[in-house]
């Protein structure tokens, strides 16, 4: 397990909560970096330990930190009735909040091979994939192609449209969560195609990364989400 000092963080958060209440201030819900359910090197050789560590400890952590800052500022602006201040903060919230949301899903989308990473989905999700995309290979091919074609930074998603009750493949730019593409979309699998997700290992060859990432995709988690939301 990735070692984190959870205890001290919780204690500090608790103190902050208490002191805010004593002062009569409403405290906002802040966020913390979730632990990875596996070691940094556990996804090798598909994704290097170096990338996993920087991706988690630096990139995701930065989104969390900046999201919390933006939320604090938003709270103040809302309390002051500072309308233009509120609007001004929206892009920072979308970007950093989206980054936190997306990456939290991403870590669960991946698993070491010995814990089922890469194992094809069975059951309801497997059936739905075959129905909508012909086969898992068909889905993988589509997602990889769209991920490779995405210009700049973003994500490629397998999502469930709860309203239409069908699976969809879609892309989002930057850190936009899938929900920005449709309110009824639930993300099942997201693949990060920002350069930071693969550059140290695959350099400019994004298609190679996309070929290999499927070996560690955790279809069990996707199946659970699918069953819950159907």
């Amino acid at each position, binding site marked *: 397990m990735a070692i984190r000092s959870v205890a001290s963080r919780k204690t500090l958060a608790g103190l902050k909560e208490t002191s805010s209440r004593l002062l009569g201030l409403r405290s906002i819900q802040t966020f913390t970096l979730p632990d990875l359910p596996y070691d940094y090197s556990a996804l090798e050789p598909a994704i290097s330990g170096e990338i996993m560590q*920087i991706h988690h400890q*630096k990139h995701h952590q930065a989104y969390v930190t900046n999201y919390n800052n933006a939320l604090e500022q938003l709270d103040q602006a809302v309390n002051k009735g500072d309308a233009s201040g509120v609007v001004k903060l929206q892009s920072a919230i979308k970007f950093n909040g989206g980054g936190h949301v997306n990456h939290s899903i991403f870590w669960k989308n991946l698993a070491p091979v010995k814990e089922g990473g890469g194992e094809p989905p069975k059951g309801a999700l497997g059936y739905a994939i075959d129905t909508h995309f012909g086969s898992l290979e068909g889905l993988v091919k589509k997602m990889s192609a769209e991920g490779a074609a995405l*210009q*700049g930074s973003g994500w490629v998603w397998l999502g469930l449209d709860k309203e239409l009750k069908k699976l969809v493949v879609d892309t989002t730019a930057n*850190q936009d969560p899938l929900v920005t593409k449709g309110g009824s979309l639930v993300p099942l699998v997201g693949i990060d195609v920002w*350069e930071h997700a693969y*550059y140290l290992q695959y350099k400019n060859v994004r298609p190679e990364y996309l070929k290999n990432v499927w070996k560690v995709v955790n279809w069990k988690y996707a199946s659970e989400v699918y069953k819950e939301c159907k």
Partner: protein
Amino acid sequence: MMMTTTSSFLWSCSLLPSQGPNRQTQWKRHEKVLSFSLSCSPKSTVKFYMNGALVSRQLSRKVAVSGVVRAGFELKPPPYPLDALEPHMSRETLDYHWGKHHKTYVENLNKQILGTDLDGLSLEEVVLLSYNRGNMLPVFNNAAQAWNHEFFWESIQPGGGGKPSGDLLRLIERDFGSFDDFVERFKAAASSNFGSGWTWLAYKANRLDVANAVNPLPKEEDKKLVIVKTPNAVNPLVWDYSPLLTIDTWEHAYYLDFENRRVEYINTFMEKLVSWETVSTRLESAMARAVQREQEGTDTEDEENPDDEEPEVYLDDASEEVD
């Protein structure tokens, strides 16, 4: 009709000023044999602004009859050896950033335009045409990135950094308060450009802040330096600004040397890499161009809507017609 198109093109091409020390040969196309072209569909006129002038291009479907030498854009090497920017920008970065990313943009661009009506135009023209007022055509990404990267390599130099002087410093101080203030704002812009993109210092003359709208009451103070952030491949040429300096903030530009530490990369760029000499030269050209087009009065001419005709660009395949 082909002759007319070509000759008018050559005429306006000669007005294209250089934007830096090495710019003259940059957009040189290979010598081209004039070809007869058969139109099998109505000609269309595309209009866009280039260097302040309203430019008209007639595009027609070409079926090349005889030996046309295809133009191809070249991957120009940076004006210094690939390891010359060490330790501020590593050789490895140049190997990938120039040798793979930039190279791929140029190669894919050439493949995309080969045999189409974009073949034979200058790179700037391809960029402006394919920008298509924000509804970018597929070739825009490669064309603009090819342009951006060449501009980027020329914006930096070994032993760069320091402070600008002369007109450039004067304008920076006029428009940003002080050089330090400018640097702070430029760095802030570059670090807050979410996702992939570029941050620019550009010279804006006689333009309003909306796309291609001419300032109806232009004054000297309206000709100013601006800091612009653009996403992905977009650059300020599309708003008819004159780019002076750029920093690439796509992750591939700094990841091998700085990992996620974009701020450190930006600091290094400003302190050790930026070529103020090049920026100054570009500014001189930009200012001269602004004066020239004012004198020619091309700016205030007809701004009756170039919009009455939707630009149509015929590519090599009927299925790609854009209405």
